């Protein structure tokens, strides 16, 4: 079975700038995939090539075994392109019906399918509105709705929650998590915590190059001799905490880059139940924790 996405030595340069430089990776269908990187890293360029908005300068790309733009991919691959807007002349439902018909739905089915995806995005009250009558967030949700028409196999989402209020951002995350079984999402975002919650595989682009491809939920990329626990505490004396935890058996180091958040490195082989000891230590010192993560956070994995 072919990979869902397969890129080999992908290069793109325009206006004298190398936007992508020898990017190679493979992703299988399944849990959502994150695409992270700073502004200008090449994320949108990669998205645009995958969607066939333009072609690569060199290298090969395959989606579901086909080149981008291939007729076989119509309706199977969908996207929320960055900054794409609906036609201002037609209502949202009319445009979604039109797009559904292009995917092979007849008029009646298209209408039902459009209503289904609008309901997922909590937009049933706005089906007959013109795009200009919707807020920025509603337009974005309508654009995500169009990407879900026909339950495509692969959906590319470029900054899906940027500009949305927390409630709607949460709904979109929930919908992505719910649909993840039938559709594979490739999500580009600057919101690392959001990606950490949603995605298994993380593609880290920087300066047009693939810096790393990691599994956000496993620790296989970590040094086998050292395990990590990330803990966020309520108000605490930072120096005191580091001092006391450092003295615990098997602890190698305690680092803190954010206020009240600590990454504890320890020998997991000799102390597999270190987390239990740590919790006891917290209780003995009357320290209250907010969050405890076995391993490093995605942010730590990517940027430390």
């Amino acid at each position, binding site marked *: 079975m072919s990979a869902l996405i397969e890129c080999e030595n992908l290069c793109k340069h325009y206006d004298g700038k190398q936007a992508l430089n020898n990017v190679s990776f493979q992703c299988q269908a399944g849990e959502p995939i994150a695409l992270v990187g700073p502004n200008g890293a090449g994320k949108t360029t990669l998205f645009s090539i995958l969607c066939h908005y333009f072609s690569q300068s060199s290298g090969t790309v395959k989606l579901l075994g086909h080149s981008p733009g291939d007729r076989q*991919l*119509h309706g199977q691959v969908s996207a929320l392109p960055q900054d794409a*807007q609906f036609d201002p002349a037609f209502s949202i439902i009319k445009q979604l019906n039109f797009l559904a018909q292009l*995917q092979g739905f007849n008029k009646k089915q298209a209408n039902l399918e459009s209503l289904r995806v609008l309901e997922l995005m909590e937009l049933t009250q706005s089906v007959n509105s013109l795009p200009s009558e919707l807020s920025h967030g509603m337009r974005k949700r309508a654009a995500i709705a169009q990407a879900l028409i026909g339950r495509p196999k692969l959906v590319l989402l470029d900054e899906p929650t940027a500009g949305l209020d927390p409630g709607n951002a949460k709904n979109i995350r929930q919908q992505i998590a719910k649909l993840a079984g039938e559709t594979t999402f490739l999500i580009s975002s600057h919101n690392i915590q959001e990606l950490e919650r949603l995605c298994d595989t993380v593609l880290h682009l920087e300066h047009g190059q693939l810096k790393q491809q990691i599994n956000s939920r496993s620790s296989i990329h970590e040094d086998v001799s050292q395990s990590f626990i990330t803990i966020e505490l309520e108000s605490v004396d930072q120096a005191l905490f580091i001092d006391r935890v450092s003295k615990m058996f098997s602890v190698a180091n305690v680092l803190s880059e954010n206020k009240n958040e600590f990454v504890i490195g320890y020998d997991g082989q000799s102390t597999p139940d270190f987390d239990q000891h740590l919790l006891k230590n917290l209780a003995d010192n009357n320290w209250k924790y907010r969050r405890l993560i076995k391993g490093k956070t995605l942010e730590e994995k990517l940027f430390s």
Partner: protein
Amino acid sequence: MQTSHTLTPPSSLANMWVLITLELSRAFTSRQGLIYLGAFSFFSYLFINYGVIPFAFSRAEQGGTMLGAIFQNYYSMATYGFPILCLFLAANQTGPDRERGTLRFISLRCSRDEIFFSRFISQILIQLIYIAISLVLLVALTTYQQGYDANSLPSALLALINIGTVIFPFVALMALVSVLVKQPRQATFYAGILWSLSSILMGLIEEYVPVLAPLNILILGMQFSDLNELVGASKMSLAHVAFIQCGVLLLAGRFLMGRKSL
């Protein structure tokens, strides 16, 4: 539950029909489309009632029937008027959709060829409907003022075919220019420039490199003066000029559309 995996992928023709119906809906049911249609009908009425029919009297006095003179006047106006109208009405084929990113939604569901050619066909149909409206007005006003003439409907049908043929390359020109620019006004401006410059260039070529003179078949409107000399069905003897020009422009437009970033 139907999904894209279980549905039969639509054929190119089915996709083009969906694309065409949306464009027709934009032209004839949207607010802006209805405003254009109303304005066009009003100005057509003025041209026909105060231009085409009154000036036919003097032409008829020189020989021929009144109906023939009316249609000759109509041809003189329409042969130049509709191509110029095309530069405005057919200017928004793909540019605005590309500018706002709407083509990104569409291009994931159908090919660029389907988009390009369906937009072209839509504009041809829209222009044909505009021409038909002007001819309905012409026949109605002629019948009202001159009485019923059995030749009026066949003449109107022939005019629809003749003027329809004339506008093909102009719609194709707008399809091509629309691929290159983002705004309809830019498309109209560049099409006008292109049309004027190509005429000047061909004039120079005919003067200084006469061996290349046959290339003037590519100049839009080069057949207009000859068309006005011909009468009725004989005008179709120049139809090949419009179709050759249209073919060349569509090939160029399709080539550019395939390579343009969306």
